[in-house]
């Protein structure tokens, strides 16, 4: 019992210690405006780090977010800011912890890919209350009563429409049976499939033959192994002509399943993202085409928007980058794949 009370007392002592009171005793050599020694000090020298930006990425096991992180870091560095990158591992709890940490560290700005677009709200609100601007990229936050200073992402709906057009182009006038590998947990993927369906529905309207029929919509988890398993299951039930996968890993999983069933040359795959392995697969003819996203641009623009925000300049508070369709011909001329 004594030990417990000691511990609890220690806990309380910790909670009561106020490092701010040490302000006056701790002298500093790094202060940028040491007004006591110089009554008319200069403005901060440019060599010193101007501050830190905290980035809680959705998951760093997906190269897409790694690219965002790298480009954000590089661009911020150019303007004199350091970036801390943390992996939220798709876990809103972890992401909330990251935001708490950033607030404790008094970062200049916070960037997140929300792990849950609603649940992350209270954590963002805390950052708002601490006066730290919050930016999002790729995924948007829709929680009520929170202030997001800037967002940049892909126009997923437009991307879905492009995927639909690519599907029509690939299947030709004959139409066919299509499997969709979905990932409903991500709102971005819901938008992609909505855009895709709009184009396909418009194509089918008033058509007697040669319709494009969606025979199954399965969860591919956005992952290679789950995409593989779902496609293998679908092949048992349907004679497929095409697959639309909401990202590259699940598209490649689908290809493995088709290849095993010796149907890879008969079934068309449309992917999404344009990650390096996806582009490579398009070059090899495994995937017909991808609407590609621009993660590098997302990272750069996010950093630039933070700088603009601090500078007091205007910028688009919500910016959606349109995707572009990437086919085999593009892959053959892509310097990235040489």
């Amino acid at each position, binding site marked *: 019992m004594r*030990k417990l009370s000691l511990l609890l007392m220690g806990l309380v002592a910790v909670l009561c210690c106020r490092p701010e009171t040490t*302000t006056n005793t701790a*002298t*500093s050599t790094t202060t940028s405006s040491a007004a006591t020694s110089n009554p008319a000090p200069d403005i901060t020298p440019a060599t010193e780090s101007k501050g830190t930006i905290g980035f809680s990425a959705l998951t760093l096991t997906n190269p897409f977010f790694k690219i965002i992180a790298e480009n954000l870091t590089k661009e911020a560095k150019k303007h004199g800011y350091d970036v801390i990158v943390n992996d939220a591992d798709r876990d809103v709890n972890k992401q909330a912890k990251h935001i708490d940490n950033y607030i404790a*560290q008094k970062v200049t700005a916070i960037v997140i890919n929300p792990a849950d677009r609603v649940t992350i709200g209270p954590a963002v609100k805390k950052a708002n209350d601490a006066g730290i601007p919050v930016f999002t990229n790729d995924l948007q936050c829709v929680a009520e009563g929170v202030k997001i200073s800037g967002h940049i992402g892909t126009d997923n709906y437009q991307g879905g429409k492009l995927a639909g057009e690519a599907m029509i182009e690939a299947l030709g006038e004959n139409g066919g049976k299509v499997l969709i590998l979905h990932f409903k947990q991500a709102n971005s993927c819901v938008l992609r499939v909505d855009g895709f369906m709009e184009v396909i529905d418009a194509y089918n309207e008033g058509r007697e033959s040669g319709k494009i029929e969606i025979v199954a919509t399965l969860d591919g988890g956005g992952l290679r192994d789950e995409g593989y398993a779902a496609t293998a299951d679908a092949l048992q039930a349907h004679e497929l002509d095409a697959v639309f996968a909401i990202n590259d890993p699940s598209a490649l999983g689908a290809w493995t399943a088709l290849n095993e069933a010796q149907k890879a040359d008969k079934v068309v795959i449309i992917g999404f993202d344009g990650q390096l392995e996806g582009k490579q697969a398009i070059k090899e003819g495994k995937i017909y085409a991808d609407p590609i996203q621009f993660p590098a641009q997302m990272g750069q623009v996010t950093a630039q928007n933070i700088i603009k925000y601090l500078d007091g300049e205007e910028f688009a508070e919500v910016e959606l980058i349109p995707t572009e369709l990437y086919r085999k011909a593009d892959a053959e001329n892509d310097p990235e794949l040489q």
Partner: protein
Amino acid sequence: MKKFLYDNGSVVVLVLLCLYYAIATVDTIYPVGPAAGRQLARQLVAAYGDSTEVMVVVGESASEREFAEAVRSELESSGAAVHVLLADKPATVRQGLVEFASGRQKMDAIATHHAGMQWGPLQADRLQALASEVPALRDVKVHEPRSYRWPTFFTQANLINVINQNSAIFIIAIGMTMVIICAGIDLSVGSLVALAAVVVAIVAEKVSAGQPVSTPAMLLCCAAGVLMCALWGMGSGIVSTYFRVPAFIVTLAIMSMARGLAFTLAGSPEGISIDSAFLTELGTGRTMGIPNPILVMIVLYSASHIFMTRTRFGRYIYAVGGNPEAARLSGVPVKGILVMVYAAGGALTGLAGVIETARFESGDPKLGEGFELQVIAAVVVGGTSLFGGEGRIVGTLVGALIIAVIDNGLNMAGVDSYAQMIVFGLLILAAALLEQLKKYAWKRMSAK
């Protein structure tokens, strides 16, 4: 002294970790708050004299307001003229400057915090450019409070964070300690957190019909969540004791069922928002400066420590874990105790689920992912034996602190996230090894 060290090996580990992070996270701190404001005001008086004219430019948050207010009151008490501009974002600073300064002859200085030093409108060249429009801004200088070097790990805000953000883990660890002392295990805790969160949210949605939920109604919703987790816990207890299915398998099955049920009930993978003043207060409010989740946690730890050391039931739990046959022969209701322990573990998990729901103001079926491993790690690092019969609530408190500190410190020290996983694993292994070594050494010492 030696005995103290042997008894409290994990405390030593904790202290060493904290010391390490204290060194590893030393960084420049740019203070914002009343103390910093007063310091800056004194700095300005020293530089410009008593009758200076100063403008304070900061953002709108509570701490920035306090800062501005401190600068104002300190400067005004020495006769200076002060104007405060609270800007909602840097872009509105320029307009505020123009509005304030255009009617004036001369302004000596602008006071802001470190973040403000980076704002475009406060840069020297921009101020000079503005001076052609507003002469008072000619030669105006921008000042910030003095910064200092201090470990970012050892700030009050961060130390509160470390405990507060892990309070659910801390609370579940109490129940897990009892379960593991009984030589059992419960893998379902993470999923039960999610299930509790979703149940609380759904019940709240039903009773509120779009309105904010009243406090008594919200308490009932929370009770529903806790009760349901207690029932699931009781279920694992019954199946594992009366049907002799290993607890590992029973709770593994429940882990899957509860997670699936949480997603099914929620109907979508997204969180269900709850609008309740009580819940917001529980999750993010503070009492006497201490976050409410920490207070709940302190109460639970004190109560369970007394329960485990001072009550008959507490002693029964140790007896059942140490040697069930001997316990049975001495008249301890072994099976009943086991079922009760699992039910208590479930209830505590449900309570942790309520705390998480309160923190996020929504019932999210994705919550609690991976909690079981963190909790088991905390309990074992805290010195509880997986073979049963041995362990202390205080030990678990220290173990959970170690896990929490490792996690937080790695973030604060800016360790790369891939490397974090490796270091996290290594540190847990080291802490557990040390605990074993300590026991071994203690045995040898007492044998002599």
